[in-house]
């Protein structure tokens, strides 16, 4: 019953999306009041129905209803409930349903919350939202029905990929999807503004919270995904330049650029066409991201669907959306009046440099990710990986860090290069001092050396906008910028430290044999079997000592899952203020020795701490802008 209920809700939501699109088009073309008045309520009900369908799917997974094909293929009755719950989107169909649910809810939220935009622009925005949703509904209903039944019902399910059986599954996909969808809302605003020829500060102010919100969630999703991969895969890596990771990085880069250009448009009425173009690019990247991952073109732990028919469907949707967006842009961009121009040395100039460098990095990541696919089309098999991305994007990223240090210290409209240099004296000193100290004390490689030195400079530069201000009276969005930029410095320092100073020890160790890794001496005390809900494991007891400190006990496991049959290594990580001790248990050999993989990673935690700071900065900025607008609205109402 629940499955049929969910399917019915999905069909109704799809029908309402079609109606929403038709009413918006009718209203805009004919200017009639009745269809325009209908768009908002339809958007709200559409979102509610999509959410009901998702709730039905979650209920089916929680109840382990083995008459539903999707549950059989991806779940097992013995799984802990949290993985039954999160497992609802740990598969192709469920994750697409989650996507469209978030999209529907976001559309509903726009319909309820947005009050600043002219009615026509808002209606066009909601129409664009419905158009996007319609493609996803069609894909779900015709090619990926999550509610298909199985007759006769199976006795039990096949289980969920053990790599996905982790609390990360409950958090990582929804946050990324909220980010993707938020970008699609921003794009819908851009479409709305293009359709009604209304690209200006009001549009920028309406779009900004959505861009900012999407960006916060993308940041959190990427940070969480990186840490998940770090502890789950068991080799101490935290970023692999894997196509699927790139698929989440590209929308983030585009959203970061958009976030900065939308500020220029909102405050100075500059960069009009460019901001709209970036909204189109950001949306295209989130579509490419979703579809690259979902189509199964890329083999990875994220690619659930490996079905050529679905691949073709997805490709068609991709072409329609991106092609449509670019066509609309090309058709209407002539009507967007050129925004205000400005001096090279100015805050606007700094933001243009930011956008230029971010776009180049985005282009490099996009080309590097797609190149092997295109080459394969020509019959050439090749791989593009970390060496290419580090060499091509690394130097540009460092240039971006420098721009980031300078930008916030620039004045709007026009600034003086000499005065700017005076303001930069402390950041430059910090960079030089850190670089010199590193070369003398512990020379790292070239890229980490630049990374650490510039991180120090950026850290100093990013707090400078607070100097001379009363911290209590400083607007919250300035705090947001400071914290986010500081987060980049913190994260960069963590990356550079990890790549330069990680100590690695791979050994076959006997019981009680001491093994050295970095400042620690690790001893294998013993191995014992342990049992979990749906796995059994061998667990090592390791005691690690640094100098005269008390021993840390770590328990890495080698886990065996029966449904499906898989072995995973569960790393054990001890976090200290100055880094992490990362331990993995491998197999035993004929002489009774055990494979141990040990890493001491100094300050590696800064990578994710920085990510959290970046997201926090975004949140502060969002709240700050909101409060300022509220205050302005109240003042207006009183006047």
């Amino acid at each position, binding site marked *: 019953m629940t499955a049929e209920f969910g399917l019915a809700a999905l069909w109704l939501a799809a029908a309402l999306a079609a109606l929403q699109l038709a009413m918006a088009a009718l209203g805009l073309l004919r200017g009639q009041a009745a269809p325009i008045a209908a768009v908002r309520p339809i958007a709200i009900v559409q979102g509610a129905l999509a959410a009901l369908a998702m709730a039905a799917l979650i209920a089916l997974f929680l109840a382990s209803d083995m008459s539903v094909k999707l549950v059989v293929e991806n779940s097992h009755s013995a799984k802990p409930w949290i993985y039954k719950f999160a497992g609802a989107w740990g598969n192709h169909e469920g994750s697409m349903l989650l996507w469209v649910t978030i999209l529907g809810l976001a559309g509903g939220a726009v319909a309820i919350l947005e009050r600043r935009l002219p009615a026509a622009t808002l209606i066009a925005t909601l129409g664009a939202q419905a158009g996007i949703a319609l493609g996803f509904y069609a894909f779900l209903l015709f090619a990926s029905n999550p509610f298909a039944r199985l007759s006769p019902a199976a006795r039990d399910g096949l289980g969920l990929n053990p790599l996905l059986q982790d609390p990360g599954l409950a958090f990582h996909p929804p946050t990324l999807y909220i980010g993707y969808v938020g970008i699609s809302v921003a794009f819908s605003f851009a479409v709305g503004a293009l359709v009604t020829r209304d690209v200006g500060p009001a549009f920028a102010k309406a779009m900004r919270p959505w861009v900012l919100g999407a960006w916060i969630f993308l940041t959190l999703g990427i940070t969480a995904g990186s840490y998940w991969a770090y502890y789950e*895969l068991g080799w101490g890596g935290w970023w692999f330049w894997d196509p699927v990771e790139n698929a989440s990085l590209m929308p983030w880069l585009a959203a970061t650029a958009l976030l900065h250009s939308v500020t220029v448009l909102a405050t100075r009425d500059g960069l009009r066409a460019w901001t709209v173009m970036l909204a189109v690019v950001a949306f295209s990247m989130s579509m490419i991201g979703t579809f690259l991952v979902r189509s199964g073109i*890329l083999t990875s732990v994220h690619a659930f669907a490996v079905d050529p028919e679905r691949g073709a469907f997805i490709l068609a949707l991709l072409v329609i959306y991106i092609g449509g967006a670019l066509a609309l842009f090309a058709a209407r961009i002539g009507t967007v009046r050129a925004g205000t121009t400005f001096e090279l040395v100015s805050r606007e100039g700094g933001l243009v440099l930011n956008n230029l460098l971010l776009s*180049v990095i985005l282009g490099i990541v996009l080309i590097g990710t797609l190149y092997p696919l295109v*080459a394969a089309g020509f019959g050439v098999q090749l*791989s*593009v990986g*970390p060496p290419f991305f580090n060499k*091509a994007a690394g130097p540009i990223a460092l240039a971006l860090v420098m721009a980031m240090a300078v930008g916030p210290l620039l004045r709007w409209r026009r600034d003086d290069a000499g005065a700017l240099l005076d303001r930069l004296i402390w950041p430059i000193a910090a960079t030089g001092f850190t670089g010199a100290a590193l070369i003398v004390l512990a020379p790292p490689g070239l890229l980490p050396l630049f990374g650490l030195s510039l991180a120090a400079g950026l850290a100093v530069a990013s707090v400078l906008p607070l100097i001379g201000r009363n911290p209590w009276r400083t607007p919250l969005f300035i705090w947001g910028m400071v914290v986010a930029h500081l987060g980049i410095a913190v994260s960069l320092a963590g990356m550079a430290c990890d790549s330069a100073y990680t100590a690695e020890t*791979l*050994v076959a160790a006997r019981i009680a044999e001491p093994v050295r890794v970095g400042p620690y001496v690790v001893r294998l005390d013993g191995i014992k079997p342990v049992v979990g809900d749906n796995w059994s494991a061998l667990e090592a007891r390791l005691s690690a000592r640094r100098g005269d400190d008390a021993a840390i006990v770590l328990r890495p496991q080698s886990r065996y899952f029966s449904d499906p049959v898989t072995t995973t290594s569960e790393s054990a990580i001890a976090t200290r203020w100055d880094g992490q001790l990362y331990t993995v248990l491998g197999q035993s050999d004929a002489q009774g020795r055990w494979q141990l993989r040990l890493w001491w990673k100094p300050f590696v935690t800064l990578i994710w701490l920085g990510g959290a700071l970046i997201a926090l900065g975004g949140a502060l900025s969002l709240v700050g802008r909101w409060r300022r607008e509220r205050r302005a609205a109240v003042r207006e109402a009183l006047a």
Partner: protein
Amino acid sequence: MRRWPWLAIVLLATPALADPVTPPARLAYTQLRDPAQEAQARALMATLRCVVCQGQSIADSDASMAGDMRALVRSRIAAGERPEAIRTWLVARYGDYVTYDPPFGAATWPLWLAPIALLAVGAAVARSSFRRRAR
């Protein structure tokens, strides 16, 4: 002490190692004694693709084939071979697919020139938003 790397190479060349039941080669999960050589091997392994995995380098894969390739890289480095020579040997055997660092050539020049082209195009686009100083 100096003889076993060669033994490992001989072993790798035999079909027995293709059998997943065979215990992993010793150097698959242990490091070289000389830290400089191990660092060389580590840097090379991070840029070689595990050809049976889902987009992982041989430096961070549990697959037995990746283990065999790690053993091969370490034993050849220990024998004094240069990293680039080992990469060339592997590319000759498995094709360009095996290296994450695509060599500059007929099929890859657009890839390697793309960053410069992007910077040039970007700079040209950005110029249009600035006011001319002379005006």
